[in-house]
């Protein structure tokens, strides 16, 4: 039996405690608290998906962060929706193209890191700028409408309350949790993140696993782009902008180490839900936009403070 003390030592717990506390407040002030929860977890789905991708990258070691996620989201969604052209029959091609586009950007990031030996943050920043230009040039920065099939899919709620996409994101999180704790890939990227030299000396194919990681991050961002654009009635150039900081925030709030080598999928789910519950709570309370931002920032710092991240990040 885990005691209270060992429970509190689990870093991911704080995000769940925070989410529960915020939900309790919502239940106290709102007549329809479950509808709020339902709306929150719909949006949290996107945080979970990009968060997992970002977490994989962060896990591979100090300084590894994917800054290209926002523009990958916008590019993948624009590419997919352009191919779909509002026709339900084209959905499979569009989704596949979105995922492939995201993966290609991830691969490009990796190639920059591998062959130009750029620090990952700078490599992903540079590629993100290039991708943004491509999105502007090929999709003219217009809002490209989703097909009705995808719109229905992302807003479908099981039993009227639980969004289907949230359940699928949970399934993806469960799969990644198993992969990270049981599969060779997971062990390897943890090893690389903790000590790249030791991992290399043990025969881990560092290059291969880093490549897979960056591609996976792009793929998660691509999937998120398609789903998010279906949810918010269209792909736009700036649709992913808020995900740059938030994707890092949910990873660290969830208890993963920003220095790498220590991942936590369970925490990402909790912190994603927490972040959106806060936004909705402050909305219900009628708080002004400015105060909402301030409160969000304070909560992010507070959770990090409580969970006691104690590693230098590079």
């Amino acid at each position, binding site marked *: 039996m885990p005691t209270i003390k060992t429970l509190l030592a689990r870093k991911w717990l704080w995000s769940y405690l925070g989410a529960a506390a915020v939900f309790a407040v919502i239940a106290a002030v709102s007549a329809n608290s479950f509808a709020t929860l339902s709306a929150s977890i719909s949006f949290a789905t996107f945080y979970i998906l990009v968060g997992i991708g970002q977490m994989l990258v962060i896990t591979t070691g100090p300084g590894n962060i994917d800054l290209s996620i926002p523009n990958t989201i916008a590019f993948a969604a624009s590419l997919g929706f352009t191919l779909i052209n509002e026709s339900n029959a084209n959905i499979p091609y569009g989704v596949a193209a979105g995922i492939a586009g995201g993966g290609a950007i991830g691969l490009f990031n990796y190639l920059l*890191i591998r062959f130009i030996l750029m620090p990952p943050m700078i490599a992903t920043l540079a590629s993100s700028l290039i991708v943004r*230009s491509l999105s502007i040039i090929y999709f003219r920065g217009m809002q490209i409408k989703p097909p009705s099939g995808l719109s229905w899919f992302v807003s479908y709620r099981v039993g009227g309350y639980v969004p289907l996409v949230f359940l699928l994101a949970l399934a993806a999180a469960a799969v990644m949790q198993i992969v990270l704790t049981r599969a060779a890939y997971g062990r390897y990227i943890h090893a690389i993140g903790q000590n790249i030299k030791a991992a290399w000396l043990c025969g881990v194919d560092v290059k291969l696993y880093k490549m897979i990681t960056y591609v996976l991050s792009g793929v998660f961002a691509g999937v998120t782009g398609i789903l998010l654009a279906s949810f918010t009635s269209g792909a736009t150039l700036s649709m992913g902008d808020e995900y740059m*900081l938030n994707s890092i925030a949910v990873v660290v709030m969830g208890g993963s180490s920003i220095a790498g080598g220590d991942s936590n999928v369970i925490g990402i789910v909790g912190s994603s839900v927490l972040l959106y519950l806060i936004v909705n709570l402050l909305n219900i309370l009628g708080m002004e936009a400015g105060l909402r931002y301030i409160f969000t*920032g304070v909560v992010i*710092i507070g959770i990090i403070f409580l969970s006691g991240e104690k590693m230098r990040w590079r």
Partner: protein
Amino acid sequence: MVRSLDARRGGLARYTESLVPVVSLLVVLIPIVWRQPVLISPSRYYAMQTMALALAIPIVLASLGQMLAMSIGEIDFSMENLVSLVTCVMGAVMSRNVALGILLLLGILVVYALIGAFIHLKKLPSIIITIGMSFVWTGLAITIQPTPGGNIPAIASDFMRLKPPWVPYPIVLAALLALAGHFLMFKTGFGILARGVGDNVKSIQQSGHSAIRVRIMVFALVGLFGIMAGVSLAGLTNAADPLLAKNYTLLSVAAVILGGGAFAGGKVSAAGTVFGAFAMHLVVHLLVVLKISTDWQAGVKGFIILFALYIGGFFKRAGKIRYI
């Protein structure tokens, strides 16, 4: 394990390294001057100001702030939010109540000093603290100036519009800033300690220096440079806007890297950072004179970063095992 070139390397490698920022600026500047030679003729030197050269100054200041943070191996992810907030303080508060405005700016400095202390005492990663702070700064900015507008005090805009003889004012300012930054990082005890903390904090501590003092001072200075960037941006644009400095965070990081700074800390170049900031800023003008669609603006910035790092010899690390 991606650590950049060793600073101890002498000879040619050192020169190629310090050439990176110069080359990256030339890559941008030469086509501009080639297509519009009038820009460098003495009779028309004010034309350089009309090409919005002056708007590079806030970016230079923000980049120097980022350089300070990166010199100790940290990063400020809230730079654009801070700079925007300062423009809002200038527009919404300073014009009505100077004392309150100055008090707010001092408050920002204190918060930055506290961030430095926090990062040291709790061993919290600066990246995540400053992500949190970015929401706080934006929140404050929206609270005091919900929509773009404001009334910037004349002293700020007058100062940014001085017209010294012979040399364009932005160039004068940039040169002074580069000199000041270089002096701070290389000729003062503080600069040496800061770079030491970035390179090897244990050796600094064991030689009897206080790392927390260095971190507090560095972050206070990051705040100060951010504030100066905001004041100059407000003076130039005559606007207060919670989103005015959009992209400054990434631009400043890119400028430091272009300038030859190392991501892992300990190695910076003030002059290089100033060059890098100018290169990033002048990209728009480059596209205009080359008649390339400005749709490519972001992409060309990306390519310049790639190009500069590629020729910078960052890839030459002979004799070391590369794990990736």
